[in-house]
């Protein structure tokens, strides 16, 4: 076991941190939010220049050749400043789908373009009725000549508003909840039969609902064997957002500490009161326990033992979710009234953590899964 980043990883982290320090102050971030896309296309280009958009792709596909650890370091840095750009959906979720299931031709066609910043993806899996059940898919796909057409609806697709292509799950046969017979498709969001309704989620990123009616799709992976790929995508997403939560917790804890030193009540900084100090200590402990769980998720991404990997992801999702919830709620509480305002940053971190908790299944869902495993 070795928890120290390598020299290359340290360099990566330094260059990402420097880019964000120069370009991602809270006031700057507000200007990105005000743009029509709801994020900064300039930043997107800068991410591409730095190699971040090809971070986990092999070098032969124009990538950086990194893995889950590099994604963890970058997502943690993104979490510290609440990055708005569609990195998670494009590089982590979409990227995992293509690297896991894509044919060599698909990889050659898509990965280099993603790495250059020319293609944005979103993972369109969730449906209204499904909540967190990965097998609850009623969108259908049927053969049409040499290809496939899809019918159905997908909801709360993260960064769906910006996406050029979607990774869509659909049933090629079978019933709702069947584990087999789900297939993944690449769908062009500009294709006929694709209707998009974009909106903001509570964390201010732009999501979308899609309805598909006879929309053309290109098979990604093996027909009927989509669930295993979906699991891989979800696991990569859990690991990445766990790291993002750690970054968000760090910033909330730093803000709260700073506030406790400067806010004076009853003639003294509130940080001089032991009740506040102990809450800060609890927040720090939650952050560190959460960091440990984010590391667990990262080290599990490539674990070939299915049972152990699923178990560890469930542990990590619960642990990080609970830590993020505790730190967010405490950060607002320790700030008092100012923490309730839209103007102040801490509430924005609170809401991002709240949204992350609900991506890919919440702590209660995974706690239930763990409970079911006990023999």
């Amino acid at each position, binding site marked *: *076991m*070795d*928890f*120290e*980043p*390598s020299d290359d*990883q340290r360099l990566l982290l330094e260059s990402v941190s420097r880019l964000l320090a120069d370009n991602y102050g809270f006031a700057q971030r507000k200007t990105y939010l005000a743009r029509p896309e709801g994020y900064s296309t300039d930043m997107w280009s800068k991410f591409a220049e730095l190699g971040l958009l090809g971070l986990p792709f092999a070098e032969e596909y124009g990538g950086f050749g990194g893995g889950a*650890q590099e994604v963890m370091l970058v997502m943690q840095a993104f979490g510290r400043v609440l990055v708005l750009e569609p990195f998670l959906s494009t590089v982590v979720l979409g990227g995992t789908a293509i690297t896991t299931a894509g044919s060599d031709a698909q990889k050659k066609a898509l990965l280099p373009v993603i790495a250059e910043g020319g293609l944005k993806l979103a993972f369109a899996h969730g449906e209204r009725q499904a909540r967190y059940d990965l097998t609850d898919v009623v969108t259908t796909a049927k053969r049409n000549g040499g290809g496939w057409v899809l019918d159905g609806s997908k909801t709360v697709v993260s960064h769906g508003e910006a996406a050029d292509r979607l990774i869509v799950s659909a049933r090629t046969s079978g019933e709702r909840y069947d584990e087999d017979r789900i297939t993944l498709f690449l769908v062009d969001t500009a294709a006929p039969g694709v209707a998009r309704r974009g909106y903001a989620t509570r964390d201010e990123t732009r999501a979308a609902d899609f309805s598909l009616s006879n929309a053309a799709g290109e098979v990604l992976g093996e027909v009927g064997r989509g669930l295993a790929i979906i699991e891989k995508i979800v696991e990569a997403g859990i690991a990445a957002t766990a790291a993002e939560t750690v970054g968000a917790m760090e910033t909330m804890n730093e803000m709260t*500490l700073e506030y*406790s*030193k400067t806010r004076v009540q009853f003639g003294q900084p509130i*940080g*001089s009161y*032991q009740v506040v*100090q*102990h809450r*800060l*200590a*609890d927040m*720090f*402990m939650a952050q*560190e*326990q*959460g960091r*440990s*769980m984010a*590391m*667990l998720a*990262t*080290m599990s991404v490539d674990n070939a033992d299915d049972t152990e990997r699923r178990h*560890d992801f469930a*542990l*990590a999702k*619960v*642990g990080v979710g*609970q830590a993020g919830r505790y730190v967010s709620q405490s950060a607002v509480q320790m700030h008092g009234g100012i923490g309730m305002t839209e103007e102040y940053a801490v509430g924005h971190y609170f809401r991002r953590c709240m949204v992350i908790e609900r991506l890919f299944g919440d702590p209660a869902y995974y*706690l*239930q899964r*763990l*409970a*079911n*495993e*006990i*023999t």
Partner: protein
Amino acid sequence: MDLRFTPEEIAFRQEVRAFIRDNLPTDIHAKMKLGNGPSKEDTVRWQRILNAKGWAGLSWPKEWGGPGWTAIQKMIFLEENQMAPAPELSSFNITMIGPVLLQFGTEEQKQRFLPRAANLDDWWCQGFSEPGAGSDLASLKTAAKLDGDHYVVNGQKIWTSTAHHADWCFVLVRTNPNARKRQEGISFLLVDMKTPGITVRPIISIDGSHHLNEVFFDDVKVPANLRVHEENKGWDVAKYLLGNERTGIARLGKSRERVNASIDLAHKVNMNGQPLIADPVFRQRVAQLQVDMKALEITQYRVVSAFDKAKGAGRPDPLSSVLKVKGTELLQATTELAVDVAGPMATPIWAEELAAMNEQDELLEAGSASTGSYLFLRAASIYGGTNEIQKNILTKAVLGL
């Protein structure tokens, strides 16, 4: 960064597990599996078996009989030993006085005490707390006056675990009552418990056991060559000792063992006409504990791995306070789980009746023993610096408040 165990570490775990399985005396194992603590004799027997194997020294260097393990290997050993469950090594001998003598002791002190400490030929105890000096340890009053070649010690220590078993005690004493800062007037002495003037009085704890004591010092003569480190520098020794104590204090293996025992027992007791193990509330509670244990396990590896990297040169990691707080919270939560599983069988004090039974009743014995560890481990968040003091340490060391 490699967040997995190396093949060597996995093989090491197998080796430790196999050794414990093959060498732990069956009578000790059977008794502990039910949740009973080991007797003095059990602890001595097991530590001598481990010492013969060269494993008792844990973090000690090889030249002093240590196994030469990395900190990760040390954690793996502790976990396996606790999960077995087997008697734990005497922490006073192995993680307190041993490292203190290695760091601050004279050659003569090391030669005289270390081999006997490893083999548990000497049973050590810790004379730190006093009636007026608990969390505020530096306010201690037990006085030592130098008189020629020896100190004369007068005063009282309290909460002295296993003093009634002990051959030796390491004691914090005040050698300069006029020091500018209270911490600067304290020295660290090694005291033979057979010295005239020492009186040990039992304190029975809420689990009914005799573990704690009061120790009175009445004109006790201690040779000056049994002082460790310089006079009035005893606080540095105590800080070193407490920092060292912290990394082993999470006792995660013990928490895991209690959860496993609770799951075993939950198959044998009923709830609403079916085994308790089928109850969703029970299962969720176990699942939550698994989450918390995993988080602590990885935090612990982060701390010891950083310690390994610093080659022992680093100061105690403030994260070790997290281990203390979270580790003891888990010890308490897992022993509480075992008691709740035992249900009404957790209430009787069975010891004598059980001993008199011709046929042993495992359920009854497990229930009764679970309560013993539940009650005793209420102390876990108090000893070694209360959890509230740990939060003060975090506030200062990490947050800078």
